């Protein structure tokens, strides 16, 4: 039904009213004359019906003779015929269409996607040097030519593609990534122990293994030898490479005072206000005397509407006066603090590639101090590369 109505609208139709006693005869007359009629309704003393515009124009005289009154002419054809009278309006629309089509035939923006080290300005400058500037006629754009310009100007480009999307020129780039190649050291070297340990595991990639699992080694002892003997008895130097894990032992004693002086925040405070605008701070109010010992706290106060529109906000610095109090420190607190301190110390000695095999932590106290006594067995990498300077010394 909707399609039928749309079709009728496109063709155009006329709504007429006929006031006649024998309206049935008129409908039959239309039928005989092959005039298609629809939406016939009884209204007052007569009938209202719709006739397609083509039939109306063809049989206009006959229809008027029946005493028909035209109520309305509808449809696209009639709407267009009205435009004949409004010449200025028609001309305006035509001009608008021409303008839109004309302006759509230009590129108005260059959008660059995927650049990392190369800036947008550098790319636009390179294009401008080759007379590619906006507005640019779409018909004159040669994708391959622009891509070649980019490749010529930027050696770090791995891939460049240019395509048009509406009135935008999209430049899609992919840059080459700098690969940090592994530089192999080829100088002759030994791997020596950097601390006293018991060997746990030894993996030799290059060189001659001098120790085995379970051996006790001292600091400076050679673990993997860089002087290798060939089958003919000839000696030559190699760069030793391998991983040596050793068990190391640490005895640590850490202590903390039972009574400590702690600075506590009081209610007395001084404030300083700043106005932040465009990421710059302007001081509005500053209290004259700041406390000698203080804890500083900063707050940002957002002003409704203004903050979101103009990026204006208030910034407040509060200086709380502190007072030093002598406090008996809680035992659990100290225990946790010393344990954390212990792990920090171990990390300092052993580094990343290490793990705790066994530990024996003891917590004790005397009159003035809390003590943490720890015996820790660690597994860590103990190998260290040492250059061989002269084979004669070996």
């Amino acid at each position, binding site marked *: 039904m909707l399609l039928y109505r749309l079709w009728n609208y496109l063709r155009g139709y006329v709504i007429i009213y006929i006031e006649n006693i024998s*309206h049935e005869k008129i409908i*039959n007359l239309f039928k*005989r004359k092959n005039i298609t009629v629809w*939406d016939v*309704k*009884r209204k007052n003393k007569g009938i209202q019906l719709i006739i397609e515009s083509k039939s109306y124009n063809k049989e206009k005289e006959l229809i008027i003779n029946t005493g028909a009154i035209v109520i309305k002419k509808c449809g696209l054809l009639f709407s267009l015929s009205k435009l004949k009278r409004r010449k200025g309006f028609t001309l305006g629309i035509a001009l608008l269409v021409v303008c839109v089509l004309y302006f759509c035939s230009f590129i108005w923006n260059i959008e660059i996607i995927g650049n990392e080290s190369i800036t947008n300005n550098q790319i636009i400058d390179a294009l401008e040097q080759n007379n590619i500037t906006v507005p640019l006629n779409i018909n004159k754009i040669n994708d391959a030519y622009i891509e070649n310009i980019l490749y010529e100007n930027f050696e770090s480009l791995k891939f460049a593609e240019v395509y048009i999307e509406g009135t935008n020129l999209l430049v899609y780039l992919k840059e080459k990534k700098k690969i940090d190649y592994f530089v192999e050291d080829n100088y002759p070297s030994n791997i020596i122990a950097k601390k006293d340990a018991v060997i746990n595991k030894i993996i030799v990639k290059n060189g001659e293994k001098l120790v085995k699992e379970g051996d006790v080694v001292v600091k400076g002892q050679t673990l993997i030898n860089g002087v290798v003997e060939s089958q003919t008895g000839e000696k030559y130097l190699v760069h030793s490479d391998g991983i040596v894990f050793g068990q190391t032992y640490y005895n640590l004693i850490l202590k903390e005072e039972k009574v400590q002086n702690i600075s506590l925040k009081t209610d007395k405070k001084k404030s300083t206000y700043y106005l932040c605008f465009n990421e710059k701070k302007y001081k509005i109010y500053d209290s004259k005397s700041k406390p000698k010992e203080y804890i500083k706290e900063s707050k940002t106060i957002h002003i409704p509407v203004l903050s979101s529109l103009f990026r204006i906000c208030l910034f407040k610095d509060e200086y709380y006066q502190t007072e030093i109090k002598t406090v008996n420190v809680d035992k659990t607190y100290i225990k946790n603090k010393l344990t954390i301190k212990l792990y920090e110390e171990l990390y300092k000695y052993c580094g990343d590639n290490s793990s705790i095999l066994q530990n024996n932590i003891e917590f004790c106290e005397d009159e003035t101090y809390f003590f943490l006594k720890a015996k820790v067995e660690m597994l860590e990498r103990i190998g260290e590369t040492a250059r061989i300077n002269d084979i004669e010394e070996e």
Partner: protein
Amino acid sequence: MKFNKIKGKIADELDLPDNILTDNSNIIITGNRKIIIESHDGIYTYEKDIVSINSKYQIISIKGIDLKIGEIDNFRIIIEGKINEIKIKQKE
């Protein structure tokens, strides 16, 4: 009239639609809202509550409320509205 009856019987025997061989009207009723009558001879009466349609051998009277002619051309007529009664009267 007789000839039309014979044509109707032939159509029945051959399993063909009746209106192909005969001059009988084809009436399609959709609920009580719409009636489509094919091969008609024009309108006999048209009022808001009654529409009579002329066919070659019968007069089809439709009674109802707010009846309107949805479409009329040489071949078919569509009657829309709230239909209460359909009466087919044989012409003499």
